[in-house]
């Protein structure tokens, strides 16, 4: 977009709310999320089960089953264009072509009855006017790019013939085949062994450099965050509670939840020092069926005051690039 100012973010999500109707009532999975991703940036989204990190990502691509899901409120500005109002046909042009996605368990996102080559070629042909033959060549090239050995042979293999790590490489090849500007990676290494996880994270970094794309890395693992991204958004119970550069977040975590999260992890790098007891966060995540009024972390927070339950704290900037949703600041 030539006329746009350079400062416009690639993706800007404003007060997004995605709710799900269930037999028990409305689940407020994503309940007022704000986040932005700049061009070429790696943004981490971290949080525990049920914090809404995956639903946020799926909402961006409109991959939410509707109903029971519904985008209740908010904007998803993709290069200035609101995706919320787009119909399915227009969304299909954006998926893969402009925004790619990979998931935790590649086996469930690959079709078991087609070869991986056919599946990559299908994605390519949806967006580019190529012949079947040319699309297959492109598939081989993509498999080579993600370092799958003997790609000209492996392109004819079925998903079950690949190991977990190799399957994730296939998914990455497929997601990048149309050269998207943003790759959403939803827990891409959670199902993998630690040595394979390291390989996949290296590959994502290499691909990011090569294609100059932005990455939205969703994970529950603070270690993965620290090693893989520049900026972090911490989510809790459907809301963003803190946003910072990765250095700011680990040097000066502001939100009591972020502080608790960092302290509750056993630290292998500090193994030589005296072992201390882990600082667990008491209690459990609140139900999103009927979330508490005010700050959603208040009932588990050591610093909570009666004031905390009055109103939902908004994100406020405390230092450049560092925002937190907590009334003690």
């Amino acid at each position, binding site marked *: 977009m030539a006329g746009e100012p350079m400062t416009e973010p690639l993706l800007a999500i404003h007060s997004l709310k995605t709710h799900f109707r269930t037999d028990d009532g409305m689940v407020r999975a994503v309940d007022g999320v704000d986040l932005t991703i700049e061009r070429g940036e790696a943004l981490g989204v971290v949080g*525990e*089960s049920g914090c809404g990190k995956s639903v946020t990502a799926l909402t961006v691509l409109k991959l939410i089953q509707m109903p029971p899901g519904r985008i209740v409120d908010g904007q998803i500005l993709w290069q200035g264009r609101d995706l919320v109002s787009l119909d399915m046909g227009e969304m299909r042009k954006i998926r893969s072509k402009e925004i790619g996605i990979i998931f935790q368990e590649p086996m469930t996102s690959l079709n078991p009855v087609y070869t991986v080559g056919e599946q990559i070629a299908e994605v390519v042909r949806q967006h580019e006017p190529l012949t079947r033959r040319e699309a297959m060549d492109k598939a081989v090239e993509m498999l080579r790019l993600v370092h799958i050995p003997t790609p000209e042979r492996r392109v004819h293999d079925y998903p079950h013939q690949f*190991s977990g*790590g*190799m399957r994730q490489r296939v998914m990455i090849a497929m997601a990048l085949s149309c050269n998207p500007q943003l790759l959403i990676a939803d827990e891409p290494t959670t199902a993998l*062994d*630690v*040595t*394979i*996880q*390291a*390989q996949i*994270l*290296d590959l994502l970094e290499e691909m990011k450099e090569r294609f100059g794309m932005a990455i939205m890395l969703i994970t*529950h*693992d*603070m*270690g*993965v*965050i*620290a*090693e*893989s991204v520049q900026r972090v958004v911490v989510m809790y119970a459907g809301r963003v509670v803190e946003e910072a550069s*990765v*250095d700011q977040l*680990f040097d000066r975590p502001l939100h009591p939840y972020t502080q*608790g*999260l*960092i302290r*509750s*992890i*056993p*630290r*292998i*790098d500090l*193994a*030589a020092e005296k*072992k201390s*007891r*882990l*600082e*667990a*966060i*008491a209690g*459990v*995540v609140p139900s999103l069926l009927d979330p508490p009024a005010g700050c959603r972390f208040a009932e588990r927070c050591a610093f909570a005051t009666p004031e905390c339950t009055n109103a939902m704290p908004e994100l406020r900037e405390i230092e450049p690039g560092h925002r937190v949703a907590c009334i003690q600041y």
Partner: protein
Amino acid sequence: MPQPLLQVKDLVKNFGLKGGILGRTVSEVHAVDEVSFYLNVGETLGLVGESGSGKSTTGRCVLRLIEPTAGEIWFEGKNVTELSGKELAALRRDMQIIFQDPYASLNPRMTVGAIIGEALVIHNLAKNRRELHDRVVELLETVGLGADHMRRYPHEFSGGQRQRIGIARALAVSPKLIVCDEPVSALDVSIQAQVINLLEDLQEQFDLTYLFIAHDLSVVEHISTRVAVMYLGRIVEIASARDLYARPLHPYTEALLSAVPIPAPRAKRERIRLQGEVPNPIHPPTGCHFHTRCPIRQLPLCSTEKPELRKTAEGHSVACHLRG
């Protein structure tokens, strides 16, 4: 020196793979390949390794939930592999297990009270209903739950609470050894810390001995006295937790440690990246199982001769031709 509580000698477990129209055993998975270790009273031995390393199979063989193919398992002077009937039942009072998935390991049709009380009934550990009830309440309180949870069903609990129920069930028969098979892997980090702290408290309170099986090296380092690293069915290194993490000797241990992401963005570490993946345990590589991925291998030595686990320092052993 006191006798160890548990001593495992040359434990082997092969699983037959059936195939062909006659369903005969056509090949074997060498899940555990001559594993030996000991465990002293009150200590925690961590067993780490990636998928297919044989760590869970080892844990289950110790309890004889899986029948070992060969080897000896000595528990308090008795060879577990030779016990049967009454003796085996008695042994199961002394050894318990906690599973990874608290969703799958609790019977959804039983109340929490019945789940925890079951073992007490089986082993005749309560004289009457009153005593049974009191003991179950006591166990629930020990793991941080309460008497009001007794009449509820597993689905009414969160993941962390279900793991507490699993721990209470294991504690019911006052065991000496608990095999913890990935007990916190399915839990969120904030809940994981609660359960790890609970396990540490219980160990101190009841003088428990743990065989702690996990793939998460940070968790294992935190909770263990000593750690054994497994690769394709074999122990490649065993040392005190502090020693292993500070001075790893086996190239696999080194690579494994350097692959763990650390929540400290400024930490500069040497990265050792292993090429390829764990080979198929049906046809493990000859010689040292790790030689196909090893950055320092020397052929043909490493591909032909199996390295034995050798002691290099007090309490530190490694199975590598080139190190130690």
